[in-house]
């Protein structure tokens, strides 16, 4: 078990390095002088650009600059914002917290509702309920998250005046964005859950369970679900990625002061250190989530879990 975790951790390192390299390269390919791009100098005609480049290390080879960037990033130094002149990490920290809140609430809703719907659809497979759930989930993956958000604002805030239309306040401000963000994931998770459970229901050991006289519910929850959970875990991990990306859109719709909004604003303001830092944070979180999902996958599978002592 420990060996597997260590193994996975080691495998994640090259991916992390690769992602940082990707982010670094994309943003250093911005046309224009990097002095201006990354340090926001208002260049006057008489400025000694050479000296400034030298001072900032920008005359060194790109590889050396990347290593510097990596070294500083590891120490938590993502540079300074051009706009506020404060450290990027300090500027983004509140956004990270807010986005985490939104993402966690969404994935929680998505897992609970998605798996419940999937279990129901498999339990009542090929019935009218199953067909309804298929249609609903097809809509769920087809409707753009930013449109669902607008519709919910129109319905819940404008028409019914039940919930605030945006901003950050108490828990009621969280409901609409979290719900909006979770819909697509609910659809995907419920479909995968259903498909996986139906496949397991064909297994011989399910017939054994039925031959024991167990009830349908016990067979579903005790015998089918634990075996059918693995594709669901994988897909929840993937969904978390889509969900992180979706926060950018949802935060814009609901004026939620998260990382995504900072990121979009930073792009519009050409605040490249903030863009670089923001994308990097998302990437690292994404890699770490995938790592956790991998480990969970192994932890829940007795065949893999007991492989070492067997």
């Amino acid at each position, binding site marked *: 078990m420990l060996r597997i975790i260590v193994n996975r951790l080691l495998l994640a390192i090259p991916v992390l390095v690769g992602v940082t390299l990707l982010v670094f390269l994309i943003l250093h390919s911005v046309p224009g002088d990097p002095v201006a791009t990354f340090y926001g100098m208002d260049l006057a005609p008489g400025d000694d650009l050479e000296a400034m480049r030298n001072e900032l290390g920008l005359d060194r080879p790109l590889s050396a600059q990347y290593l510097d960037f990596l070294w500083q990033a590891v120490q938590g130094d993502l540079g300074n914002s051009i706009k506020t002149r404060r450290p990027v990490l300090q500027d983004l920290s509140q956004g990270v917290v807010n986005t985490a809140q939104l993402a966690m609430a969404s994935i929680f809703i998505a897992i609970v509702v998605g798996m419940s719907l999937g279990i129901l659809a498999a339990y009542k497979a*090929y019935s009218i309920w199953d067909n309804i759930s298929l249609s609903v989930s097809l809509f769920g993956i087809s409707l753009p998250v930013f449109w669902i958000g607008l519709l919910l604002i129109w319905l819940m805030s404008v028409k019914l005046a039940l919930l605030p239309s945006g901003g950050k306040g108490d828990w009621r401000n969280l409901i609409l964005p979290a719900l909006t963000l979770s819909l697509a994931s609910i659809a995907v998770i419920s479909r995968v859950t259903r498909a996986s459970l139906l496949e397991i229901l*064909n*297994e*011989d*050991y399910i*017939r*054994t*369970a*039925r*031959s*024991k*006289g*167990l*009830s*349908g519910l016990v067979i579903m929850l*005790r*015998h089918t679900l*634990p*075996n059918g959970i693995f594709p669901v875990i994988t897909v929840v991990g993937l969904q978390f990625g889509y969900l992180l990306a979706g926060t950018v859109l949802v935060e814009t719709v609901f004026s939620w002061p998260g990382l995504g909004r900072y990121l979009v604003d930073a792009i519009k303001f050409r605040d490249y250190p903030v863009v670089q830092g923001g994308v990097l944070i998302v990437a690292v979180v994404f890699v770490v989530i995938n790592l956790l999902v991998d480990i969970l996958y192994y932890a829940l*599978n*007795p*065949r893999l879990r*007991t492989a070492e002592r*067997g």
Partner: protein
Amino acid sequence: MSSRILEVNDLVTRFHTQDGTVHAVNGVSFYLNEGDTLGIVGESGCGKSVTVLSILRLIPEPPAEVARGEALFDGQDLLRFSERELRKVRGGKIGLIFQDPMTSLNPVHTIGSQVSEVMREHLDISREQANRRVLELLDTVGIPDAAQRARDFPHQFSGGMRQRVMIAIALACNPRLLIADEPTTALDVTIQAQIIEQVKSLREQFGMTVIWITHDLGIVAGLANRVIVMYAGFVVEHAAVADLYADPRHPYTIGLLQSLPNLGEDEDERLVSIDGRPPDMLQEPSLCQFLPRCRYAIERCREELPILREVGDGHQVACWSDVRFEPQGQDL
């Protein structure tokens, strides 16, 4: 005569598929007395498993449909039972063992919990009592070091050991009837013999009635007291074991017996295989399904479907042609 424990009459099961309706079981009737061991013999696809699984509604419906018939267990028709009533029978009064022990146990639960589960369902006992009985059962079915092994998962067991676990599950609630659906087909020959011996001794110990499904007439000879032979969803012959081997009356049974290797006899003796292919089960049968492969067919065989008729004491056959078995090795 001892009491009837199970009586199946005119059972019909079909599978509705995209390619048409598969007529898997076509009016099967048989009975079973207390203490009997009934062998059901036939090649794969002949409907022998579907027959017994239909009785307990263990086939997937849809696509399957148990269209007709009755299955009287202690005089009550199982086919009219609600799902709830059936659940009391499954695992409680009737225990089952299946063909492939490698896939018949749930990989994510320990052996012990899979055995105790069935007792917790049917018997009014505490978790501790159930756990104690698990160890007894594992011991009874010949699993050494039961206390340790109960905590292991299926993948840590060999095929033979897993089938012993299946037997423990089937026997856990002292069933009156044990249905074994090709339980040794997937096992090595030596393990196969061990499992058969185990079931024999447990049968005495528990005083059970047994249905043993197999395609191996050799196994039936050593285990059962009565046999039904199935072909294409029909019972073609039903007899006491001794009668069936001494005086087989259906051309298909004769073919099966001829294809059986006779150990200890002339090594040169060739096996006879039955010519032709198994029938197309998508057609609603109107004639004897064995007709295209039959060497003994008479005019009447091309006119009407044969019905099961009495040809001796407790010996029934579904064949128009009055065939007698030619002793082996003469005209081959």
